[in-house]
């Protein structure tokens, strides 16, 4: 079943993705079985009890209680899906990796119609932000008087992550609600103004050539359809190299 669904689904480049895809596979098995069983019964019943073939209806109709068991069965399967798969998976999905894993921390701030990606830079600390300082060259209003801000790196629609390193993304928005969706990472989180939400994933394969994108899944205005960024999974060396040659806030914003 996962293969069957897989023919349409984007490649899965994340560690937790397999688990979610398996869940999808199992639910669709349940759906398929229900549909086929009921469907077969349905077609047979329509043929068998056609007025021509069965002129006299039976007042009492079906006597068996198969359906009751079937419904009980469905209920049980749903309980299993919840307890054994969905809820644990959700728990893992919402529980950020601990510091010992040395996760890569990034802030993603959505705006109409682009993704601002904010890296803490060399010192690994995010600089102070202040909306009042927002300008076209300083989309996030980084406060350069804060020394920790100077070395920060802010890119537009360019989201680089490191292979096999846990990544924590703090998602928020400047204006309206967007939705930060990474199909290849099986990750999505609404970007809600006034709210910072952390999501995390661990890339387990690099693009090697493929173009992977950040989609916006929530209607956010007339540019919603073209609000997309790129996500690149780099090996450690490439990632560091890339980050090193990206202009720091000090440079990009100037003074």
């Amino acid at each position, binding site marked *: 079943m996962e293969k069957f669904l897989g023919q*349409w689904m984007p490649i899965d480049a994340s560690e937790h993705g397999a688990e979610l895809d398996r869940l999808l596979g199992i639910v669709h098995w349940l759906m398929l079985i229900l549909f086929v069983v009921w469907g077969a019964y349905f077609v047979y019943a*329509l043929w068998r009890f056609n007025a021509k073939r069965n002129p006299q209806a039976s*007042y009492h109709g079906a006597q068996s209680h198969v359906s009751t068991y079937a419904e009980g069965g469905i209920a049980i399967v749903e309980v299993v899906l919840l307890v054994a798969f969905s809820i644990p998976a959700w728990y893992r999905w*919402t529980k950020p990796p601990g510091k010992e894993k040395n996760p890569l921390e990034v802030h993603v701030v959505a705006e109409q119609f682009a993704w601002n990606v904010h890296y803490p830079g060399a010192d690994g600390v995010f600089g102070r932000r202040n909306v009042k300082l*927002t300008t076209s060259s300083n989309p996030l209003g980084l406060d350069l008087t804060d020394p920790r801000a100077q070395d920060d790196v802010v890119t537009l629609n360019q989201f680089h992550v490191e292979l096999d390193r846990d990544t924590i993304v703090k998602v928020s928005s400047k204006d309206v609600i967007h939705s930060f969706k990474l199909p290849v990472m099986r990750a999505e989180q609404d970007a809600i103004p*006034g709210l910072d939400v952390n999501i995390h994933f661990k890339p387990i394969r690099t693009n090697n050539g493929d173009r992977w994108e950040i989609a916006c899944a929530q209607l*956010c205005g007339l540019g919603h359809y073209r609000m997309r960024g790129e996500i690149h999974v780099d090996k450690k060396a490439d990632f560091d190299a890339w980050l090193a040659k990206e202009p720091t806030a000090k440079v990009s914003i100037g003074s």
Partner: protein
Amino acid sequence: MGLRRQIRVGNQWLYADEARKALLEAERVMREEDRHKLLHGHVLPWYRRWLFSTDHKVIGLQYGFTALCFLLMGFGLMILMRLQLGWPGHAFSIMKVLGEGRAPGGVLLPEAYNQLGAMHGTIMIFLGVVPLAVGAFGNYVTPLMIGAPDMAFPKLNMVSYWCYVPGGLIMLASFFVPGGAANSGWTSYPPLSDIATMGQTFWLFGMVFLITSSLLGSINFIVTILQLRVKGMTLMRFPFFVWTQLVTSFLLLLAFPPLEAAAVLQLMDRLAGTSFFLPSGLVVSGEILKNAGGGNPLLWQHLFWFLAHPEVYVLILPAMGIVSEIIANNTRKPLWGYRSLVGALVFLGFMSFVVWAHHMFLTGMGTTISAFFQTTTMIISIPSVIILSALFISLWGGSIRFNTPMLFALAFLPMFGIGGLTGLPLGLASADIHLHDTYYVIGHFHYVVAPGTIFALLAGVYYYFPKFTGRRLNEFWGKVHFWVSFVCINGIFMPMFAQGLAGVSRRLYDGGAQYAHAKTIAEQTNPFMSICAVGLLFAQVPFIINFFWNAFQGLRGKRTVDSNPWQATTLDWAATTSPPLGHGNFARAPVVYRGPYEYSVPGDPAGFIPQHVPDTPAPPPAVIGGVIPATAVAQREI
């Protein structure tokens, strides 16, 4: 004195002499009624008869006609959207109907696409399906089914309709205000909707009217059903349709006020400069928004979905009611598991108030809360399974007549099945991560509302048309309408699941042509889906002609069917004429003696026993006296 002769009329044993008396009486009553009806016809000015009538049947027809027009309109908007989705950026001459502002040179603009999308959703749900399912069928049929002369509050009933119409007109007017109609989706999420153009204000005012209309209506329905049911019409003798209307009314009554509250708050945000839904420090296109802030965008979502989830069951329950009636009638046997149907229905109603946040899994929800809403969502799927299974099993042992209404009703079952089943992965939060806000969702709910509800409603139109007009719609063209619609509609919605799995987001102006992961599948499927949509539109032509032609003939009094063309057992068919007597419905209030679906009762020659026909008394002893319910006899004449 000697023995009195007895005769058997249908399954009635009657004293011949008293039977004659009763018949004469019946005729007298009928003539009386008809005279009044005529007097009405002559004396009441046309606008009192057709515009501001307080007769639930007229109001039902008003609702029905208006709603069908809105359905067609919502479909029309969608055709324009589908053209754009199928061939993005391509110029179409019909697009020009939207005006240069929206489609310069026939090329749809993104902002216009968003207007169409929001209005398609709004029109279909609030102006199309709900008014047709509740306002039209509920209004016309429910009082007849429970033997009532009219709704409990006829004037209020008229007012509901006249709140619905302005609500609709305001929605339409919004297309012509600066910036066009509402463009933030039918869900109107702030902050986007807070900062949207004037159309959004119109949308909110329109909603206030529609909400008022539904509230008045639901009160009227509940009181009517519980107060005006005739003698012997116990709750467990209700036709299932009546039950669905009752539960639906409670959903409307209790779920709509929170949306009204939300609408008030959003109006304050837009007009009085408050910030209920606006947090501090918003920067919209470079400008810092000047408002106090301190609001919360998610507040809207909670209020909205607290309505909108029950609302989706409002879309499906009356459909299930119509389907049940038609299936029972055309299998010529009682529904299977009536009690479990009712139980499941009521349970569904209760549960629908505690699942709303399954639309908000990805707003940053903790494990506990998501676990709660996933569980309730899985629980609520069980009653639906029970209802559908009961309907499936009702087919067993039947003697199925495949007329047009039955075809639409039967198609409803697997179509709702697909829609419902695809709700399950969405209901499991972890699976929803990949599917949320993709075309998988669009596919899911369209299978329930389009080949589901719309088919059920069309089934209802074909089934009740003789009741409305005294004529049956043409069978051949009905079947053409069905088969073409059935094929096309699946052609539209089935590929949506593939698109959704591929991660194609909804509400994309170009259907995903921009996105690397969406491009291929979009180009493979969208043109085909759009062609099917156009095919679906053409499939409606025979129906519309069929509809108007026969409606017109009916108005001219050209009746072609007797009062009970489907040999039905429920009061709406069996205890009154088609179309029913004038204001008041029944010659005499019928009395109910049995359950709603007494078809093929062993030993009954007629093959069906109407609810108001008393049990056949054994030939009474040859003595003076013995009572015969005049109604029973009178009805036979009606």
